[in-house]
């Protein structure tokens, strides 16, 4: 359609709605990232201590969620599970699926960071008389956390961006609002512009927080 120009006035009038969507996206992102990090540490702990049955469960969980599309997981949880009697609202479904999806990646990142620590550290802890649990909590976790931040940030950014998929099950987040605007107002340019700006702002804000954390955790270490 020739002659259509970017309409700032339209964008301005759509802003309150888009901001409500951005708020929902932010809530989803923060919640899911927090839960996923908890899952990550829990799973990595199980793997570190080689807990017999749990270890296999964690491994299957990780490979299942990393090797299937997130959208399919989402559809399965939202449209498939109700047939087994498990029914959650769109928002709850979205938070659960996105969290356990991201959790799988966090487990792998933390496990990788732990494996990257030098073997001598554990030996040193042992020789100081630390029990395995103490060694894990006081030595392994803090040091692994220091190196895992960039990978964790990577997953967090993916989590934020992938929250857009929740539009498919009707969660009114940023993409839902924008696509609904496109459908009812036929203003694609302005809404996509808002989408890009919204996500870039969120993810950039997150990475600057991550940088701060990294710097703080890195204090006392030589660059």
């Amino acid at each position, binding site marked *: *359609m*020739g002659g*259509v120009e970017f309409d700032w006035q339209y964008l301005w009038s759509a802003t309150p709605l888009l901001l409500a969507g951005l708020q929902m996206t932010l809530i989803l992102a923060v919640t899911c990232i927090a839960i996923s990090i908890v899952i990550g540490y829990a799973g990595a702990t199980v793997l570190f201590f080689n807990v017999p049955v749990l270890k296999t469960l964690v491994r299957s969980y990780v490979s299942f969620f990393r090797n299937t599309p997130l959208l399919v997981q989402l559809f399965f949880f*939202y*449209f498939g599970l*109700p*047939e087994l009697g498990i*029914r959650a*609202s*769109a928002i709850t479904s979205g938070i659960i699926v996105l969290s356990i999806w991201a959790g799988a990646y966090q487990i792998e990142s933390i496990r990788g960071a732990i494996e990257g620590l030098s073997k001598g550290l554990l030996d040193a802890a042992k020789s100081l008389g630390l029990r395995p649990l103490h060694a894990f909590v006081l030595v392994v976790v803090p040091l692994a956390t220091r190196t895992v931040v960039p990978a964790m940030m990577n997953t967090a950014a993916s989590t934020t961006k992938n929250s857009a998929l929740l*539009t*498919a*099950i*009707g969660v009114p987040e940023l993409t*839902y609002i924008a*696509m*609904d605007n*496109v*459908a*009812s107002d*036929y203003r*694609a340019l302005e809404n996509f512009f808002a989408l890009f700006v919204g996500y870039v702002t969120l993810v950039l804000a997150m990475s600057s927080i991550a940088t701060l954390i990294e710097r703080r955790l890195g204090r006392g270490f030589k660059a």
Partner: protein
Amino acid sequence: MPTLAVRRAVLYASAFLALVAIAPTAMAADTKVPDELKKAGEFRVGVKCDAPPFGYMDEQGKPTGIDVDFSRYVAEKAFGDPEKATFTCVTSATRIQMLTSGKIDFIIATLGVTDERKKSVDYATSTNWSGSGVLVKSDGPYSGFTKLEEFDGKELLTNKGSLQAEDIEKNHPNIKLTKFDNLNDAIMAFRQGRGDGVTQDNEPLIAAAEKDPSVKLAGISFAIGWAAPAVRRHDEALRLFMNDMVTMAKKEGVFEASVGKYTSAGVLRDMTLKGYVEPPADGSSDQNTVLP
């Protein structure tokens, strides 16, 4: 066993009838196929793939339905070959963007005519009208509802960009709307116990109810709307051509034949047919104007 003579007579008679049937198409001489279309030798149509009986996927995953048949009819008239119509599935949310961005040449996808949309597309003559309805659980508390207002404070599911969403947001702000990417997802979510009803055009809802006795249409009718083929703004040559095509198809009973083909005898067929052959209760016309 009919004799040879009888068979021959039948053959001649049907040949004659066929000629008579073809005769009106000679009229095509004064409907002008737009030059651009003629040059391209084919066209791309955006159709619905989740709105039976108008446009939906058949068992082979190919688009089929009344709108698809009509598109093939147009291809036959324009190029002498119904296969020259290629189809792209569009959703209510994407169809106008697909058209304006040039991915399709026109839309025949249950697109309701609204003044707002005339700012973005030009409509040819409307093909059919339909009322809007609400799909509810057959044994649920809402199956006796007769007015849309009764759903105030309740949650209705629909698809993004539906005429009903627009109407409800404007006239019934107390009804909570949840919008999915397409109607199938909305119906699926509803059948799994989400929301209190699904709202859309009557036809696809009846089609859903015919497949599943646990859901039915409440006795509610609102927002009568015309559906029309749409072309890009100011594409007057194509629009006039489509006008002729719609008028011709109506005259030749193309839509009636399709309705018979894609619906089984029952409420759905009657209601769909009515939308094509009878004027609507609100007295509105199938002729569409174009904004300057």
